[in-house]
């Protein structure tokens, strides 16, 4: 036993998968300690905030300012303020006034602005350009001049007599430390359509999904193991009856059955545990079949006969003389069941037949929300891509562990 475990942990494939899976589990346990709270709490107003660090504007103006002269500050500000749309519009203007733009790189802010300064003339109305477009270019030019010119912005307040009073000026060389700002929110993965922290939701969802996978795996393996052991060992009528039921379940496509059962249970009754059990109840057939065939090859071995001759009970023979011999196989089948349970939950949820949405997030539900709110069409990759990555990683690690185990227990597969 000890030897086998040592051998398993010498298989690079198993260790690789194990490390990934343990890393995911640790993240799942440790992250909520640093970021406690309900993962379904809506922290954002509006949908799909981009990943990044958000500073309270209100608190930032009150923070202690420090003065720096950063040489690239102007360029960075211009580059960040000039949107892609503006850059394309500038190229359009250059074309309209007949400037050679063959070597122009729109991402090179410096050259672009220099060219704009050289060529823009507010008094000229290029041929064929609408008035609205001309006004757009005037506004663009004004905002560019604002960004470039001056190093102080004066913020005025209304005085008692109704006149504006100069109260505070902000210099372009003024900075605040984010540490000094009272309210800073870092969203490594932004927010989703409901304004919820995606990372927090993802960590919680990973936990729920692995839980669903484990429960589904346990249910499927227990049923499959019991049926397989009984059918294989007892043979005869019991075998025929169990295989009859197994064949019925095999013939009906599992996923269709899953959809029908989930649908008939109803949204309100579908908690995570219920969904996991339903997945387990539909996925045990091939475990039963393969356990049965293994048991059939074992049941006439001499050590089983010897155990019979020693007067051992049926239960004892199955538990001590058959089960240990197929244990490695059952562990591998269990790992695959967990993996397919997680995938089945994701598929069901994507169809809107997953666990009810009000309690816990699952990986499938997160994908469902991202799909319903068009995250994939409006470019909010952070709402679905990390979810896909996590599902892939879990599946990958479990299958890698399974391959590793397979190579340890079936020496013919070793390369």
């Amino acid at each position, binding site marked *: 036993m000890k030897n086998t475990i040592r051998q398993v942990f010498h298989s690079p494939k198993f260790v690789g998968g194990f490390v990934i899976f343990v890393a995911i589990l640790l993240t799942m346990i440790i992250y909520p300690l640093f970021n406690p709270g309900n993962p379904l709490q809506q922290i954002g107003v509006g949908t799909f905030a981009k990943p990044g660090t958000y500073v309270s504007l209100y608190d930032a103006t009150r923070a202690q300012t420090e003065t720096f002269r950063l040489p690239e500050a102007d360029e960075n500000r211009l580059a960040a303020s000039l949107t892609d749309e503006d850059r394309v519009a500038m190229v359009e203007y250059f074309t309209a006034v007949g400037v050679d733009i063959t070597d122009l790189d729109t991402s090179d802010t410096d050259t672009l602005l220099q060219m704009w300064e050289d060529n823009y003339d507010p008094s000229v109305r290029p041929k064929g350009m609408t008035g609205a477009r001309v006004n757009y270019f005037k506004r663009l030019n004004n905002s560019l001049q604002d960004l470039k010119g001056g190093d102080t912005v004066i913020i005025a307040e209304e005085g008692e007599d109704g006149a504006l009073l100069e109260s505070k000026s902000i210099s372009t060389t003024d900075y605040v430390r984010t540490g000094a700002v009272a309210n800073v929110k870092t969203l490594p993965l932004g927010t989703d359509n409901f304004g919820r922290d995606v990372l927090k939701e993802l960590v919680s969802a990973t936990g729920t999904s692995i839980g669903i996978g484990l429960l589904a795996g346990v249910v499927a393996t227990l049923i499959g193991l019991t049926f397989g052991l009984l059918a294989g060992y007892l043979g005869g009528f019991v075998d025929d009856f169990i295989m009859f039921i197994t064949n019925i379940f095999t013939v009906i496509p599992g996923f269709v059955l899953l959809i029908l059962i989930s649908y008939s249970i109803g949204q309100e009754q579908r908690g995570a545990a219920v969904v996991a059990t339903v997945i387990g109840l539909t996925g045990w057939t091939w475990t039963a079949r393969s356990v049965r065939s293994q048991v059939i090859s074992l049941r006439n*071995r*001499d*050590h089983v*006969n*010897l*155990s*019979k*001759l*020693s*007067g*051992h*009970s*049926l239960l004892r023979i199955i538990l*001590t*003389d058959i089960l*240990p*011999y197929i244990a490695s196989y059952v562990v591998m089948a269990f790992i695959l069941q967990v993996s397919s349970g997680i995938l089945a939950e994701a598929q069901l949820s994507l169809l809107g037949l997953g666990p009810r949405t009000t309690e816990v997030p699952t990986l499938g539900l997160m994908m469902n929300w991202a799909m319903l709110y068009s995250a994939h069409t409006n470019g909010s990759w952070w709402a679905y891509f990390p979810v896909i990555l996590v599902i892939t990683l879990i599946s990958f690690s479990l299958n890698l562990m399974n391959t590793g185990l397979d190579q340890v227990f079936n020496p013919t597969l070793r390369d």
Partner: protein
Amino acid sequence: MSEAVREQKDFTNAPLCLSGKGVTKVFGFGDKRTVAVDHVDFEFHEGEFVSIVGESGSGKTTLSKMLLGLSNATEGEIYFQGKLRDISNGHKKKEYWKGIQAIFQDPFSSFNTFQKIDTVLLDCINMRGGKNLSKEEKTKLMTEACNFVNLKFAELTNKYPFELSGGQMQRLMIARIFLLKPKILLADEPTSMVDACSRATILDMLLNLRDETGMTVIFITHDIGLAYYISDSVYIMEHGKFVEYGKADEVILHPQAAYTKRLISDVPKIHEEWDLSTVDLKADA
């Protein structure tokens, strides 16, 4: 023809231990119908050392499975100690198995590799009703059994069967029989997987066991020379039928059936005496 190397007792008047009438085993149906054992009759007496000899596929092992009650006969009756054998439920089977035990061909697959040797021997003590014995008494019994087969119990405790050699495992199997003391021991080619040296040791132990406990030994083998050397009576099996049977001397020294003659001619040096003086029976495997 040389005389038998060993004194062979006459068992024809001894009480019957195991007998059968028209025992048949059929596998499959229709085109795939195979008659493995075809209406065989046999009478094994108490204390007799019987050999069933036949080539591979002649139905020896199928017959042994039926004798052990591990598979049911398609037809025919088996009598145990003069009464029709009844193994219709688990409890009755358990009772029957107190009277008949087996040693299998392959020692490496005979033991559950996940159980320690102590467990195997303790099971035997429990089966003989020694469940309530003190630990010391159990250890004493196990040590006695191991001594009988030239194994040291102290060296075997906490070891797994796969840590032993094939010969040692087969001797452990005999120690198991020694503890169980059944009426009948069915040995299904117990020596075919071990080396020649261990073979002599094991055969010697089987004979000692028979002499000591008076059990019937049914020895299944393909080696007619071995059968001649060891047994009191011999059954020759061909294609599921007993073509010839009787006292070992009569069958082997004066074979009647063509199949028996062929089997004898296939054995090298059957007419020479087995020189046991060169074999150290106490040698370790």
